[in-house]
Each structure stands twice: as C-alpha cells, then as structure tokens.
C-alpha cells in the first residue's frame, strides 16, 4: 500500500507548482469507516492527506462538482490545472470525462494510487456498529485489517470490502501522471453472475423487486449528485420545461427517475458504485448500472472509461449492431 509520507510529499510538490490551482484527495473523517474527500489549495495542507481503505469516495466526482463562479470584470479566469488523487475506478471516471470533453487531459494532474480495495461501511457497521472515532484500515495480502480505537480486527476481503472491489477489474489507475506506490496485482474479476441470475426471474418478480426498492426512494438525488458521470448543467430529471419527471414521490415518478438515471449512464458508468453507497434508503442502484454494463459489453463489445480516444457508445454505431427484436 502507498506510503503516506510519499503521498503527502508528492501532493505538496504538485501543489507548489504554479500551474496547479487545487488538489483533490482524502483526509481522515470525523468518525466511522469513511474518510472525508477534501479539496486543498495550500501546499502546507498536504499533511492532512491520507490514502487507505477508508478512502471510498470517487475523487473524480469533485473535479466536475467544482462551481465556476462569474469572473469579475477585468480579471482573467483561473485556468490552472486541478490535481487529483485517484484509485483505479476513480481514474476510469477521468478517462470518461476526457472522452466526453468535460475537460482536456492537460487540465489535470493525475496522481494515481494502486488500490487494494475500500471498506463497505454497511458491512463494517454490522460488526462494530457506528463508531464515534475514525477507524483506520490497511490490507495485507488478501486480509483487511481494521483498527477501531485500540481494537484491531482482521477480515477476509469479502467480509469487509465493498462489492465493487470483490469484482474489481482495474485496481490500478488506467491513466495517471504520477504513480504513487507500486502497481498491485488484480485479485478479482467480474462474471456478472448476479445480473444473469436476476435476469432469470419473471417480469412479475423483477417488478415486485424493483417496486419495493423504488417506492423507498426519497429523491434526495444523492445517487445522481455523487456520480462522476452526472454533471449536466440542467439535469432532465429536475427540468421544468419540459417536465420529464414530476417532483412528487410515488412509484411512478420514482421509477421513471431511476430509469432516466440508469439510461443516461448506459455505456458511461465506470462502476465506482458511489450511487449505491450514498443511498440513505439502501436501494441497490448498482444492479441497474451493472445490467447496462453487461449488455453494453455483450452487444457492443464496449467498456467505458478505458480509452481516451474512444467514441461515446451512443454517439457511434456499427452497421452490424444486433437487432434481433426489430420487426
């Protein structure tokens, strides 16, 4: 795992460059099993940075979350680079951002961090409950060590890591300028068996599952806002003219919201699972995205977030595309 000193020094160096305006990374949280993402501008702030399995959040989201303020008359906009620390999944978001021209490759400095998996707070809280002090964690081989106060517990990956990590195909950053620590060995793969299994259900059973899930939704839009791929200026979901989805929360509007969300991520989702992690109502949102990911793979042999030269899936076609259901 990456040495924290090295991480901070590198971050400091980068922040000292005068072509860099801010750095996105993680610092220790105020409690519990999740770190706090942070955006820092002063080199001296680098001492707070950390990276360990508590750094769950997708740092790339905060690149597109930055608000562009009006530039006062007579002043120049600050076009210096943004530096960002990324795990494997975070880095895929950056690639996809570049594919979609959210920014140019040279608008950012990427500090890549090979990742050995991040904690699933839900799994951890089943063991420890919500804890008042921030936990620390590390990995050794295929064991995960979690330190709560002075109590220390060792876990199998599957017991404590997020599901996305248990099927991670890209633990190492797929794009970076500076690589922190050594690349790690890929220890997992994804056979999408969960999706396949779900598909075997009847339409009726599928719906009764989703009906129950979607009816829980309170439309806080955390799943949308946290998504590194959701950064439209005016999201169709909350648009009033035309109003695609009503604001009222009922099974109809909630379902349509989730369809819209999943649809707009088809061929764009980079599988960071943030949407599902942040949901306060425990809706298995990733299942929708994974369905799309699988179909996109099988039908169009396409995987987003890997190649900055790639064309967006739905802005391209192949005359031989499948059309078995077309009359």
């Amino acid at each position, binding site marked *: 795992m990456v040495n924290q000193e090295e991480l901070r020094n590198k971050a400091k160096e980068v922040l000292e460059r005068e072509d860099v305006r801010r750095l996105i990374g993680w610092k220790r949280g105020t409690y519990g099993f999740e770190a706090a993402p942070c955006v820092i501008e002063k080199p001296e702030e680098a001492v707070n940075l950390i990276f360990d399995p508590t750094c769950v959040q997708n740092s790339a989201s905060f690149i597109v979350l930055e608000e*562009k*303020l*009006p*530039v*006062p*008359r007579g*002043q120049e*906009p600050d*076009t210096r680079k943004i530096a960002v620390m990324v795990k494997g999944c975070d880095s895929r978001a950056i690639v996809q951002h570049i594919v*979609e*021209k*959210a920014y140019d490759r040279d608008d950012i400095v990427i500090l890549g961090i090979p990742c050995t998996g991040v904690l699933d707070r839900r799994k951890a809280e089943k063991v420890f409950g919500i804890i008042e002090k921030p936990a620390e964690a590390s990995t050794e081989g295929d064991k995960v060590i979690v330190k709560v106060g002075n109590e220390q517990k060792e876990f199998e990956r599957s017991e404590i890591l997020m599901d996305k990590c248990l099927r991670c195909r890209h633990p190492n950053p797929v794009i970076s300028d500076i690589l922190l620590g050594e690349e790690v060995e890929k220890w997992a793969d994804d056979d999408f068996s969960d999706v396949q299994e779900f598909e075997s259900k009847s339409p009726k059973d599928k719906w009764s599952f989703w009906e129950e899930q979607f009816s829980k939704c309170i439309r806080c839009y955390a799943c949308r806002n946290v998504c590194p791929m959701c*950064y*439209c*200026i*005016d*999201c*169709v979901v909350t*648009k009033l*003219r*035309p109003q*695609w989805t009503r604001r009222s929360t009922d099974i109809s509007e909630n379902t349509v919201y989730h369809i819209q969300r999943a649809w*707009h991520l088809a061929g764009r989702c980079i599988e960071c699972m943030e949407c599902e992690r942040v949901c306060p109502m425990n809706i298995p949102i990733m299942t929708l995205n994974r369905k799309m990911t699988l179909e996109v793979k099988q039908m169009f042999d396409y995987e987003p977030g890997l190649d900055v030269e790639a*064309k*967006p899936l*739905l*802005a*391209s076609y192949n*005359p031989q595309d499948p059309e078995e259901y077309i009359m």
Partner: protein
Amino acid sequence: MNGSKKKIGVYVCHCGINIAAVVDVKAVAEYASKLPGVVVARDYSYMCSDPGQALIKDDIREMGLNRVIVASCSPRMHERTFRKAIAEAGLNPYFLEMANIREQCSWVHEDPDEATEKAKKLVEAAVAKAYLLEPLEEKEVDVTPACLVIGAGIAGIQAALDIADAGFKVYLVEKSPSVGGHMAQLDKTFPTLDCSACILTPKMVDVASHPNIELMTYSQVESVEGFVGNFKAKIRKKARFVDTEKCTGCGICAENCRLAGRIPSEFDEGIGMRGAIYLPFPQAVPAKYTIDPEHCLQITKGKCGKEGPACKASCNADAIDFDQKDEIVEVEVGTVIVATGYDVFDPHRKPEYGYEENPNVMTGLEFERLVSASGPTGGKIIVGRDRKGEGGFEPKKVAFIHCVGSRDKSVGNEYCSRVCCMYLAKQAHLIKDKLPDAEITVFYMDVRAFGKGFEEFYDRVRREGIRYVRGNPSEIFKKGDDHTLIIKVEDTLTGKPLEHEADLVVLGVGLEPRGDIREIIDIFKLSQSTDGFFLEAHPKLRPVDTAVDGVFLAGCCQGPKDIPDTVAQAKGAASSALMLMASGKVKVEAQVSVVNKDECRGCGLCVEVCPFGAIELVEENRQGNIVMVANVNEALCKGCGSCAAACLSGAIQTKSFKDEQILPQIAVLGVKTE
C-alpha cells in the same frame, strides 16, 4: 409570441366521403371545440379546396387565430398547401399542425366509433402540440453560379460540358496530366465496337477549349469549406516544371530525356514505357509535357548528365522550368460534382492466379492497351516482350477469366462490377479478329448480359467459336520452361476438374473504389456504402445526390457502371447542379436544430452523431469563463433530430420537434379518457 394567449382553430375535412363515410366529422369538430385554447372548430367537405382554404384565412383574419389545426389527409399530401394558405393570411406557416384522420383513420378502420374516437385523439394531440409551436423563418441563401467538377474522365467531362453549355462557369479539376480517364485507355467499346478514343477525344478537346470551363489538370482539391451555394475550394496545381504557355507539345524534350523509355507508362498500364518528361498519350489534353518529379534526375539527384538536363537544352520554346512551384488557387462555387472514378482490382491480391510471376497473365485493362492501335505494340498482340520492347510471342491459346476481384468475399468485394462480362466478351472477339486461329476459352461464373445489345453481342461472340466454360479457376501456374500456363478449374456444368492450357490469360478484373477515396470523403464528409463506393442520398430516388446539399455524384465513384450509364448519371448530376444555379437561390431547412448555450455542457455527442457535419463546438464566454458549446450551422442542418435524441441534458432541440412539443402529444395519445 409563445407567451401570448393561444387562439386555435380546428378544421375537420370530410374529404368528400373519404373521411366522412367512416369518421363522424361533426363529432370530431364538436370534441375539438371543447379543448383548451380552441376558439373555433369547423368541418368542411374539402379543406384543400379554395373555399376550404378561404374558410381558414377568414377565421385567421376575423378571429385572430394564432394556431391552425387541419384534420384531414397525411401532412405528406397537403402540409405545404395549408402552410401557404395560413401564410397568405399573415400567420407564420409553422403555426400549422395536421391530424392525419384519413390515412390513419377512415381508410384503415371499419368501425366508425373506433375510427371517430381515434380521430378525436389525433386532433387533441395536434392541439396539444400546437400550443407549443414556435414561429420559424425560412432562410434562403444565394447560389454562386459556378460548379466544381472533380475528375475529368468521361463522367466529369460530360457533366462539365453540359453545365458549361448551359452558360455556367465550371472548374474541372483532374489529378493526372491529361483529361480522359480510363475511357481513353480503352480500345473499343462494347457492344457496338466503336473506337473509344474516336468518340472521346472530341469531347476532350471541347472541355479544353470551352470558354466557360477552366480546366485544371495535374491538380488536386485540397480543401473545401462552406455549404450549398457557397463553397470555397482550395486547389493545388502541381508543378509540371514545364511552362504550359510556352510548351508547343513538339515532343523533342521527351526524345532527348536520358530516361526515355525507361519508366513504365501509367497510361499504358506498364506495358509501354515513357521518359521522365512525357505526354501520357498522343491525344492527351492539354498537349503539354510534364516532368515526373519522382524519376527526373535533375529533380531527384539535382543533376542530369554532365551538361545538364537534355530536355531543357533541346526545348526550342524554352518551356522547361525547374524552379516551378506548386500553386494554390481558391475558387468559389455553388455546386460540386464528384466524378473521381475507380481503380481496377489489383490481381496481386489473388496470388493463385500467378499474375506476379507470369508476364503472359495480364489484366483486362493491360489487354486494352495491348490491342489498342495507339498502344505500345501498335495493336499487335504480342506478349512477353522485354523492357526494350524486343522479343515476345503471339499467343495461340488465350483464356479469359471472369469475376477476378468481383463477387468474391475472400477479397472483400461482394458486388458485381457490371462491365467485366461484356469487356471480356469484347476482348475475346478482338483476339478472334486479329488471330483467327487462336483457341479462345472464357471461364465464367455467370454471364450477365443485361444491357442494350449485350445479349446479342454475347451470342455473336459465342457463334464466332469462342468457348465458354462455366467454372471459377482455382489456380494458374507455369508448365515447364516455355510460356505455357495451366489453369486448374472445375467445369461446374459437367462437374469435371480440368487442367486447361493457355499461353495468354486475361484476368477480368473488377472495379474498385479509388485507393485515394478517403481524401474526398474527408473533404466533403461524404459517406461510403458497404461496397466502399460513395453513398448516394437515396438508393432509388436520389441516385446522384449526396447527403451534403449541393454535392452530386457522377460515374463509377458511386458504383461500377458502363459508359452509357456513366454518361447518363453525369448528365443527371449536371442537371441537378443546374437546377440550383439556375434558380440562383436555395431554401435551407427551417426546422433545424438549435442549442441552448446556457444548458450545453460541450460534450460533443451531437457533433459525433450529426450525419451532415452541421454541428461544431465553439468557444463561449460564460460570465468570464471560457467554455465550449455546440453550435449549429443552419445551412448544413437537415433537422433529422439525431442530436436532440443524443443530448443528455436536452440542450439541443430540433425546431417543431422539441421534447416539449412531443411530450404533450405522448400524454394525449397515452391517457385514456373515454
């Protein structure tokens, strides 16, 4: 405009009994009159008739209607009519919406109640949409009265002549030093057997001398910008190193060239030789010599013999100029005709036919040069001569092979080249003509003699004693050390495997898209059909148009053709171009896409999906921050709306088909209220 109160008029047409016999038009009008915003709803026997239209116009004037719904036939029939009508009454023509209650109700449903119910809904949907219709303006752009014709083969020549004769300026651009294209290389033409050069050369001379045609040979289109009616083209005139003003075409330079007869002649398909300074062929137009910079010693080595370039020394006109540079000329045209032609299939891609190693295996086009009186052998059929043109022999057994590089998946050409069957038949005939004792065999898959006089010609050839064997040779190789070749083939009629002997094999090579077709594609953003040739706008109804307004196709660049078809298409392309230039104005689509710059995030999805290259990303100053946003070139946009469906935030919309105009229709047609 959109804010103002909506005053909608609904007009339900009986269409005689066409509609009224099934749909209760009174009930539909009654229903419509109760819909929000509707101030008047009438039914009338024939809305499209003058009194019918008058009805609408009067209501617009008297009641101040600002939206009009006509419930009648398909908008594909009368949308224009009614747009014109309401415009005459001072309403924007795009404030019209039609409900198709004939083709979609009375003509397809028997049950009057069901048909009426559906008609009501269609009208209601039209009203819902009309609510949100916006006024659009129809823009017109001027058309520059000039045409750029690319390629001076028979297609380009014909198109250029037609347009020039109509009195419009033509810029005819040809890559090679002379006009004429492939047709100039041919000896005789099937099935009439008239001499190709004899019918072509007069036209070649015409294009050179026509006052309205500016001929640019040895030139290439570098780039084109703009849109229909207003193209700007950059053309590179390559340096000939010969001052065409001075050159008299006497040819002394070529005789004296140190490399004379040492360089394979492109025109003679490599059977004949030329020098570094050359005239492609005797009747070349213009009859001006050109120095080949790739071979000329003076240019490649910087020195030619002790006493300098012989050509320069020998030229009495002092036309040779080694300091000549490429020159870029810019022309403005309103229309473009692409007539870039084809390449013949390269038999190296079918090594089993031994084209590489056996001089007596040749392509059909090489054979044309061989039999041509103007060819290297003066028309004598002698194969296997050395580089100096010495030696060689007269073939006794000649074999022709069909479909080389056509109808052949293994080389990626599934299509039929359409000319090979006939040119091989013709060539077989020519041999019979010149070598009556030669034994001639043709190996074919099918013989396709579909054209005027083709079948008759094919008959005639067979009657002349030429053997047709149905079979697709698998292999051709040399037997022993004389020049006898063995053709391995199965006679698919008898099912017998044969080892056929021949001392001359002519490969009926097919036609392929030019190797450099990409250049043109990139310049005009044209598309290719699956066979790789240029894609026409519609396979049946718009065979000479392209997706790009003002750019037309002629000849084999669109697909294999024989000469008459090529000429016909060239004339078609010419008249299409003339229509635009004659009217002098062209309407550009009014229902185009429009970008909400505040919502656009500049992802470029729309740019990617636009088939017409009408959208580009441009810089936008957003409160001091420079961002990229999409921008639509209304002259290029055709309003298909693919961009609107691709856009994630709905920032780009297509006028008259905006999301906010379609969703209300969906709502009406979905909700059950009966």
